[in-house]
């Protein structure tokens, strides 16, 4: 089998902002739909980790990523490579490179192209947080989320990449100066007139390479930063109307550099073996990629966790987020902080020394008596043996709430802080924050799973670590 997608995963944050809430708050005409919202403790890096974990837990055991590339328009850091944080959290091999592709919406395509053409198994993660000014279309129509695709060759390929074509043109459609929080857009009819021929050319080229016609395509996924042009390409390029996939923007908004990945994953979730999938994306030009779904998709779906499916994540979204809380999370509403000192930023040397623990949630198990120790330590809490520990990651291990509290005094960007003592399946206990949770409904015995989050940002340093969230469900 030639090279293609051997595993994929999507992460949609828990929260949705109902667009009508913006309209109510700002006395604007109501608009339909919802957008996905990264929580106060999420960013492009943490969502990339979640999408990467979803892909890796569904991947067959034989394929480990040997390269990593992460694309976003909302990098958590500049200068420092954000993909390195993802690399650490996914526990990738020290001998594998990790790169960022930052800034432009089109960077998502770059990451996919890199992974599709790499010599070794390569993981491309597209992750984005889209912001706009209050009351604007960018705020309303943007979205947050991430998608990860592991490319390799061999029998595990679930979607073989059979063609790729691109067109590129210089015109001013969407832009943003470094440091600006929102994009600028040119008058949209101009962009539509530019994009449509660029898309037509790329589609024609790709279908020709694949040796197929538009009517052979079973699923057409059109995404892009220009909603009007996306609709024009869906309708005006000769594909069967029944083949046009929902671009999901009504449900989750447009997740920028990540959106093409999320929409493609939504189609891979349902495509039949043998199906032909054309993915077209519009950003400063157009790209058309043709995939052939293989029989391996059947076995793949058995490994995929049901709660990881795009439709399941859309359905699980929580819609009671208030507009004021959304603005607070986006630093658009500066609230009075608690009269408590800000948390200290992590110190670089201990964070580096303890990186397996901090980034991968690697605990350990005593090689003498088998007791699990969280966080890892050198001396066993049960038998007292020293330096006999075996490392063991708990990132994917479920747990249950042993006891809990709601701290209304602690410093957190989203008070109150919910803290639980978690007992893990197979042993081990850890006290940590609960996130994506309703403080009123937490109970002893609740099942939880771990999630990679940004605990705080102080003195210009993001403190990444794991929290627990209510279990989303299993296989």
């Amino acid at each position, binding site marked *: 089998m030639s090279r293609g997608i051997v595993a994929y995963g999507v992460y949609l944050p828990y929260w949705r902002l109902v667009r009508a809430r913006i309209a109510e708050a700002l006395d604007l005409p109501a608009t339909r739909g919802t957008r996905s919202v990264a929580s106060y403790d999420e960013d492009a890096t943490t969502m990339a980790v979640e999408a990467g974990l979803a892909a890796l837990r569904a991947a067959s055991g034989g394929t480990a990523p040997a390269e990593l590339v992460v694309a976003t328009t909302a990098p958590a850091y500049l200068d420092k490579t954000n993909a390195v944080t993802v690399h650490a959290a996914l526990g990738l091999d020290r001998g594998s490179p990790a790169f960022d592709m930052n800034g432009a919406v089109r960077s998502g395509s770059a990451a996919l192209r890199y992974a599709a053409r790499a010599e070794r198994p390569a993981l491309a993660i597209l992750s984005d947080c889209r912001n706009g000014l209050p009351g604007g279309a960018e705020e309303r129509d943007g979205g947050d989320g991430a998608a990860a695709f592991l490319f390799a060759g061999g029998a595990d390929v679930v979607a073989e990449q059979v063609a790729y074509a691109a067109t590129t043109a210089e015109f001013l459609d969407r832009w943003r100066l470094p440091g600006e929080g929102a994009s600028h857009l040119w008058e949209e009819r101009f962009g539509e007139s530019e994009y449509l021929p660029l898309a037509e050319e790329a589609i024609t080229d790709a279908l020709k390479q694949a040796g197929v016609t538009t009517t052979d395509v079973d699923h057409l996924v059109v995404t892009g930063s220009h909603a009007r042009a996306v609709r024009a390409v869906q309708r005006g390029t000769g594909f069967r109307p029944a083949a046009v996939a929902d671009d999901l923007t009504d449900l989750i908004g447009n997740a920028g550099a990540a959106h093409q990945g999320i929409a493609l994953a939504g189609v891979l979730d349902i495509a039949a073996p043998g199906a032909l999938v054309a993915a077209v994306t519009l950003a400063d030009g157009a790209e058309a990629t043709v995939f052939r779904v293989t029989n391996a998709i059947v076995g793949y779906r058995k490994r995929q966790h049901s709660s990881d499916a795009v439709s399941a994540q859309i359905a699980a979204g929580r819609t009671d987020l208030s507009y004021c809380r959304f603005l607070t999370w986006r630093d658009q509403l500066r609230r009075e902080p*608690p*009269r*408590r*000192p800000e*948390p*200290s*930023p*992590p*110190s670089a*040397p*201990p*964070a580096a*020394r*303890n990186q397996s*623990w*901090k980034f991968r949630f690697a605990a350990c198990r005593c090689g003498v008596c088998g007791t699990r*120790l*969280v*966080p890892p*330590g050198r001396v066993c*809490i*049960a038998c007292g043996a020293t330096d006999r520990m075996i490392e063991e990651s708990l990132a994917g291990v479920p747990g249950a709430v*042993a*006891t*809990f*509290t*709601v*701290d*209304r*005094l*602690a*410093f957190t960007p989203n008070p109150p*802080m919910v*803290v639980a*003592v978690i*007992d893990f399946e197979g*042993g*081990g*206990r*850890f*006290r*940590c*924050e609960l996130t994506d949770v309703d403080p009123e409904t937490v109970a*002893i015995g609740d099942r939880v799973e771990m999630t990679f989050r940004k*605990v*705080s940002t102080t003195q210009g340093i993001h*403190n990444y*670590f794991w929290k627990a969230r209510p279990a989303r469900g299993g296989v």
Partner: protein
Amino acid sequence: MAARGIRDRVAIVGMGCTRFGERWDKGIDDLLIDAATEAFDSAGVAKDDVDAFWLGTMGSGISGLTLSRPLRLDYKPVTRVENMCATGSEAFRNACYAVASGAIDIAMAIGGEKLKDSGTSGLVIPSQPSDGTAPELTAPALFSLLAPAYEQKYGVSPEQFKEVMTRIAWKNHHNGSLNPRAQFRHEVTKETIARSPIVAGQLGIFDCSGVSDGAAAAVIVRSEDAYRYTDKPIFVKALSFVAGSATGTADPRYDYTTFPAVVRAGQNAYVEAGVEDPRAELAMAEVHDCFTPTELVLYEDLGFAQRGNGWREALAGAFDIDGELPVNPDGGLKAFGHPIGASGLRMLFECWLQLRGEAPPERTVKSIAAGRKLALTHNLGGAPGECVSFVSIVGSEPAL
């Protein structure tokens, strides 16, 4: 326990204790000078008579200079100690051991803390550079973890538990209302306590001890010298301190309804003092009521009540000032606040007053008239599952 202990080998012959509270008028220097001066006067000694000093403070200064500078001590040894919330008691323990060793004749243990200059709400513990993985929750949140666990284990409803917490706060505020040194000197109704704004979990503002400034001091000599200074010395029967292995936060067998370090410290102290039934033998106890659920668990950990029954005993008034075993007759941390380095010595100060019959009549525990002669102090520092604990037992007679 220390393998042998120093039962009856040293005695307290003088004590001082400042008024606790938001002492905007006093710095740490003033508080230490006030407590030390009162203790010197109480023992009838001059500061130059004291051979060595142990100063407990968590964060109001570093090194012995924190004491020697304001007091202008004459080149005396001053040891600054810190052991979280047991800091003041740790100063006392080490001073007692120094006297018992024979190396010195007169020691002072002094503790003080100036918390109210920080400008923040609640207690702030200075932190070390870290990897940023420890959840930074507040002290009330850490101790509020006890409530759902206790309710679950003993079938106590959240409403019943709230009633117990309220009863404990109400009792300690009542006791504090009778104490001129307390931070809060008024009764608080149960309704006000129960309705106070929630801080963490089930804990309202009135379930938390306050943040205050204060200092307290004791003068310690060998028992055979004690009557040279006072007719009514208080003898040290037991000193017990343990640092827990802090496994509770990592070990699923820990159930958040007990402080194992307190159980161990209590057992060690009872052995050293020869106490078999603390409920029946102690005249009073000053325990570390940092939060109301803490005091409930302490009744059981220190053997004042059967496991799972402390809440009923509390509701029945067993630990009231006129109850069988008065707990925190001075008002406790609840009414005094918790200037970390001072609290352990403040507890001893109440034992000193009560055992010498010097507490005002309205606050005098009835158990002493009934013939009981022992008092207990207790601190814990840290949080459920990972704490240090101290227990002392002192008595009004040199040998039982």
